[in-house]
């Protein structure tokens, strides 16, 4: 005697008297599986968690869950004086701390309406661009790891170590510098700094080419990234993408050029956008290429800065720093081009207090990551990893 029972989508379960269960595999019912990718996963670049709904290897939906590194940066800012926020900004995007400090310093200086010595501006641009190269090196190296290529990662870290050494020489710290202060710098650069900087540039140029030959000339690397995670330009703008992500979608937009700050208008550099020869515009490979080619532009900027820089005679890096930083009442939204995109600071001052009433960091990673849900739909798990890697998130900045 048999009992027929319909289970799920058309599969039939036949139960026999002898307690033996037989599933007739006709139109076998399949279920979607929830896969928690992270927070302890090697390729989510920190503590991001992606809740993936998977159908076999295909992702039907991936929902990013944030907040594992949330330190309430903004609440901290409201409780300390303006200069004391600088170390906190270091800890936003810890891979490009100089750029974060730079962005914050510009924002407060706009509120204060003060003028900065020219040499300070040059040093700021030099250290920011150095940090940009270091940050891009980490991005490119970890992207290699995401795709299974280990060696480029260590090549990147070898060269990044030299940059960190230079920045440590200037500021005294390896990663979290507290070097760019509101209205000035903590210290002038050491005596032989520019000489060593030139040596680094001559050393690094061929190394960058070698790095490119390891990745972008590798057929497997191209196969894994070309045409994956394509983001059209208008959607990218609507999502608020910025930096290499937006340029990867073919929009020629760089805040250093389009909303210039500091001495960038005087410098000659190219805004890198993919030409669509090697990559499909807007895919993972384009974003990778933008980062790889931007390093060369940063080197050019540094070279120009070294040439144009005023001498250190009678230079005091702290000369323009106000005795008491208390901006007049008002609001400012100021932004700077970080390695990962637009880092904006919205600061509100009431004119009475030496603490900001509201200090919001518009983090580029946070905004770039918000497109994850759309980008990941219908991708394979390995492609999802490739896409996360190409977004290049730093969770310190996402979660703040």
């Amino acid at each position, binding site marked *: 005697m048999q009992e027929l029972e319909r289970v799920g989508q058309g599969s039939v379960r036949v139960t026999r008297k002898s307690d033996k269960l037989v599933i007739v595999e006709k139109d076998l019912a399949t279920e979607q599986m929830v896969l928690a990718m992270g927070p302890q996963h090697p390729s989510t670049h920190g503590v991001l968690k992606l809740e993936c709904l998977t159908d076999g290897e295909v992702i039907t939906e991936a929902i990013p869950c944030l907040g594992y590194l949330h330190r309430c940066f903004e609440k901290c800012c409201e409780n300390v004086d303006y200069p004391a926020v600088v170390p906190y900004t270091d800890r936003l995007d810890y891979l490009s701390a100089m750029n974060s400090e730079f962005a914050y310093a510009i924002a407060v200086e706009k509120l204060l309406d003060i003028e900065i010595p020219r040499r300070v501006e040059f040093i700021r641009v030099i250290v920011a661009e150095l940090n940009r190269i270091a940050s891009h090196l980490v991005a490119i190296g970890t992207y290699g790891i995401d795709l299974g290529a*280990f060696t480029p990662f260590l090549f990147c870290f070898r060269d990044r170590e030299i940059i960190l050494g230079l920045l440590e020489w200037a500021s005294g710290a390896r990663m979290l510098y507290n070097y760019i202060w509101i209205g000035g710098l903590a210290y002038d650069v050491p005596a032989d700094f520019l000489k060593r900087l030139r040596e680094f540039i001559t050393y690094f140029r061929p190394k960058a080419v070698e790095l490119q030959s*390891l990745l972008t000339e590798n057929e497997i690397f191209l196969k894994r990234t070309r045409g994956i995670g394509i983001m059209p330009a208008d959607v990218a703008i609507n999502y608020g993408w910025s930096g290499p992500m937006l340029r990867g979608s073919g929009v020629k937009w760089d805040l250093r050029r389009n909303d210039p700050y500091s001495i960038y208008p005087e410098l000659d550099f190219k805004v890198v956008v993919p030409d669509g020869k090697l990559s499909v515009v807007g895919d993972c490979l384009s974003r990778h290429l933008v980062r790889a080619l931007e390093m060369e532009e940063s080197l050019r900027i540094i070279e120009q800065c070294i040439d144009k820089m005023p001498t250190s005679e009678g230079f005091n890096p702290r000369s323009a720093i106000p005795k008491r930083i208390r901006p007049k009442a008002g609001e400012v939204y100021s932004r700077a081009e970080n390695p990962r995109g637009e880092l904006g600071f919205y600061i509100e001052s009431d004119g009475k207090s030496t603490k900001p009433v509201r200090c919001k960091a518009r983090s580029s990673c946070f905004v770039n990551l918000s497109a994850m849900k759309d980008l990941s739909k219908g991708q394979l*798990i*390995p492609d999802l990893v490739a896409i996360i890697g190409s977004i290049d998130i730093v969770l310190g900045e996402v979660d703040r």
Partner: protein
Amino acid sequence: MSTTPLSQFSIPLLMGNNLNGWSEALVGFNLLGLPLGLVILAAIPLVFIALYSLTYGVYGERKISAFMQDRLGPMEVGKWGLLQTIADILKLLQKEDIVPTSADKFLFVIGPGILFVGSFLAYAVLPFSPAFIGASLNVGLFFAIGIVAIEVVGILAAGWGSNNKWSLYGAVRSVAQIVSYEIPAAIALLCGAMMAGTLDMQKINILQSGSYGFAHFFLFHSPIAWIPFLIYFIASLAEVNRAPFDIPEAESELVAGYFTEYSGMKFAVIFLAEYGSMFMVSAIISVVFLGGWNSPLPNLGSLALNTWTNGPIWGVLWMISKGFFFIFVQMWLRWTLPRLRVDQLMYLCWKVLTPFAFISFVLTAIWEIYVP
């Protein structure tokens, strides 16, 4: 065999050509009715695997990867970090052997065992020297190809038994990969077998010996032999889950694939199996295409390099160094190339390697019939 003074000198050390006779005598040695001799004989390759994976497998891979990546590798434990692997083994021995609560205990425990046995069984038919082969089967090559499939069972047991989604993904990927790549691999080896006209590993080796050294190797027999050689090399990378086909254990995607949940000695056994099968495929490719224990050096007139460098002991040296060379290439590739995607891997297998394997099969057949 040769009668040069050098070879004669080496014969007494390994009891020369009588080694097989010696081992057969050992098989008959039953202490108190227990087949002790058989156990000792079976342990010889095991000892070799253990030594090799300790020294060359783990330490070598670390050092090779380090030199490729512009760093030093292990340097602290012992001179040049030579004792690092011993320290690691001690660490692994002391580690708690965790079996997850929700795991299927039977499958979880038996998985690494099957895996290890699968990679180890093929050593039985590997000819390490003219005088030593574990089991001189007349279907040796066929056995070596077939026995690899046992590993699939072990991987599936480990992945399913772990009750972890990442392990499951790894296991399913691995099974799909190994089963698929066995087809081009087997056809490519069949080309070699066709050139030899036998499946006996020892006979395949003997057919490739001669006074011109490497010129007698099947790889240089015909230009066509390069195709199955390359096909088998690529497919063997996939069969032992090495980069660029390491998708079953893709660290950046699947955490660690089918062995995510393993710790302690079970983890070590899985690694031992991996290094074991790395040597196994390298040895098979050297036997079939590169003359196995034959010396590659040719006799140049009175300079009888080939004659001097052949013999039971030299055979072991050549066999192992050829195997190690291919392992070195495997490591070299691993530290250079990114990883393929699942579908690209299958594309490569079914749409590139398999058709080319068939073509080379037909071409080899034509060559063997019409070219003397």
